């Protein structure tokens, strides 16, 4: 038995790594995401910004298929997530805010499992895992059980697992939190390298300085709605001296509670 894999050429090459149209997600009567449109283009790092409870995590979980969208469409490399889920899933990697593990596997065993379910042959997975472990400084603990890892180490293993099948789109939910400065630097380098190779990256964060230095474009979200989207220069508009923080605070205050 082997996992279902997308047929070669199944994805539309011209399609962006991620396209979200009219996304709505409700929890009972509460609307967490309200008609959201955005896309991640090839070769860019898109920052997903917003205050607490803005709907960032819900949106990312919808895009990863962990939550169902109530309305709207999500396409990954042109493949609709709801109608062609296997093609779509093969094309993205996801780093959730709370890493998803089997605590009593070692880091290496966990990556072996992930390689198998993503159908990555050992000849490719083994050197890739070795390189990721080395760069993320996990090589010395790769054979320890995950339950013994610190929060930062878990975050790094989660990143390695999401990158192991070299997806066209990488989605990360608050990936910097819990990482030491060296780890954060390595992660940012890895993301930039992916973008330089023409792959898409979507990073959710509320660390504005990280977004400012890392992201090519940003989407600012509040109360489940998109407030603004564009490059930093576009968002600054006429106020060239404004920082992303200024822009962010100005936008979110306008829509915040009276």
């Amino acid at each position, binding site marked *: *038995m*082997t*996992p*279902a*894999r*997308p047929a070669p050429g199944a994805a539309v090459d011209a399609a962006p790594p991620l396209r979200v149209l009219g996304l709505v997600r409700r*929890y*009972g009567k*509460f609307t*967490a995401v309200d008609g959201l449109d955005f896309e991640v283009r090839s070769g860019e790092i898109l920052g997903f910004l917003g205050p607490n409870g803005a709907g960032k995590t*819900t949106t990312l*979980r919808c895009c*990863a*298929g*962990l*939550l*169902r969208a109530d309305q709207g469409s999500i396409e990954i490399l042109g493949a609709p997530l709801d109608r062609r*889920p*296997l*093609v779509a*899933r*093969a094309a993205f990697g*996801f780093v959730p805010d*709370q890493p*998803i*593990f*089997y*605590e*009593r*596997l*070692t880091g*290496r*065993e966990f*990556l*072996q*499992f*992930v*390689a*198998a*379910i*993503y*159908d*990555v*042959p*050992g*000849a490719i*997975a*083994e050197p890739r*895992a070795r390189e990721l472990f080395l760069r993320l400084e996990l090589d010395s*603990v790769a*054979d*320890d*059980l995950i*339950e*013994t*890892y*610190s929060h930062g180490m878990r975050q790094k293993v989660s990143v390695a697992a999401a990158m192991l099948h070299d997806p066209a789109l990488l989605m990360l939910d608050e990936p910097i939190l819990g990482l030491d400065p060296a780890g954060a630097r390595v992660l940012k380098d890895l993301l930039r390298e992916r973008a330089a190779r023409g792959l898409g990256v979507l990073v959710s964060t509320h660390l504005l300085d990280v977004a400012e230095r890392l992201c090519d474009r940003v989407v600012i979200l509040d109360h489940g709605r998109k407030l603004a989207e564009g490059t930093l220069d576009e968002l600054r508009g006429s106020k060239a001296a404004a920082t992303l923080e200024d822009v962010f605070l100005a936008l979110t205050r306008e829509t915040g509670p009276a």
Partner: protein
Amino acid sequence: MNWRGVALSRIRLARHELLGGGHGERRRGTRARPLLAATLGLVLGTIVMLGLMVLFLQLEQDGVGAREASAVLALLLTATLVGLLAFDLHEVVSAMLLDSDLEFLRRAPIPGWALFLIKLLDALPRTSVLLVILGVPALIAYAAIFPVAWWCWLLAIPALGMLWAIALGLGVAVSVALLRVVPARTAREVLGLLSTFTLFALWLGNSFLLPRLALESGSPRALVEALGSSTLAMAWSPGAWAAGIMAAGSADAPVAALRGLALLAATAAAVLVAAGAVASRNLDRVQSRISGAPARSAGRADRATRFAARPDILDALLRRDLRLYLRDWTVLGDILVASVLWTLLPLVGLPILSTDAGAAPGIDRTLLARAMLLALTVALGYEIATRAIPFERGGMAWMRLAPVREQAWVAGRGVSTLTLALPIVAVATVAVTAAFALPLHAIGGTLALVMPALVTALATGMWTGAVHGNFAWTHPRAMLTLTGRAIATLLLLVQAAGWLVTAILIDQLPPWAYAVPFAFSILAAAGLLAATAQHLRRRQW
């Protein structure tokens, strides 16, 4: 401390826990089913109550008085107390050491003993099931046959609460002391193992000892007399004090009842004070130890593992499960102990059947062997398959992230579950058929029933686990929600009854009839596994 405010907030928390609420619950797709849980609790409680009423009625018809019969009630209440320790202590320990609000509470200006009391009360909704399905029905059944004065109920219900406090207060004190000196993971596993062995001891006592006492002598009175012979131990047990309140109620002797309640209250107070003292001294340190990462050297594993040259989802799932089961040895130990118990169950029933029938040798060896193996196979559906899905905890979310069909994942889980169950069935089959010296054709006929029963039971168990699994389990015997445990038990009873009837009838039918169970099991398993995959596809993480 603002006790009123604290009490109100805890009541709100308990209400949310019982009735569900908040976005998080809906997001994770773990809707509370209060009505179903209440109905099942009521059904189980009623069944227990009716059974006990029959027992008390037999005692009464045998000339046993209310005072003497209270020894049986005392035994039942003591079983409730021991059951609380065996099955629910882990819930209190988890509430005390792992609940998400502990970080907050530890920083609040609350004394250690108050934190202990708050968390003990927090655990009440999660740990009151045995009181509902055994303690209260036992009191009602007793009172139905030996009527009690109205005031007795005013004392009996608080007495049950005190039994709860004694059992869990004592358990928490011992657990906290244990966790102070042994590593958290080891302590949890030791508690799990103790729970399994307590279950084993309770089961042996309940299944072998009591039926023989009560029935081999031909009179239920023998049970009362046997209990009366251990007067000292019984008289000084909290269960006996609580039962004494009911006996006093039956004799309209309020002073004696109050004396029993006073003894219970004093014991409960002493236990709570002792547990509060242990907690206030050690809880902070133990909580810190548990929230810290375990020692790194504890988990070093085999370095020789390699990436698969040609990945295969089935191979990956089997390898992963093998590693997880071997490393979670309390789960594996629990499955093995339970397998032995279930296999022996029909043998335990034998003296009862033979006494009723009046002739022990009348039992067909082949039928008994089949019953033993069918009991085991049906039970493996409960013991192994219901745990298969929740055993993965949040890791199940990988099924939604990876490009693998849900059906393939569930089929893989099914194969790994079968791989774990088959050796147990094989060993039991060899042991039972050898012990009963069954001829070859009888072994073949037995296997022709056992295999379809196994396939059906495993598929049923996987469906139950997927729908009613507790994905945040802390104890190997609690991988299902309360509702799930009740449903799984009912499904187990229905299957056991169905296969037993089939085993009795099938030899009277032509040989082709053996094909029917096979066909049924394949169809049932296919339907149930498809339903499992469908449920997991809809589940949100």
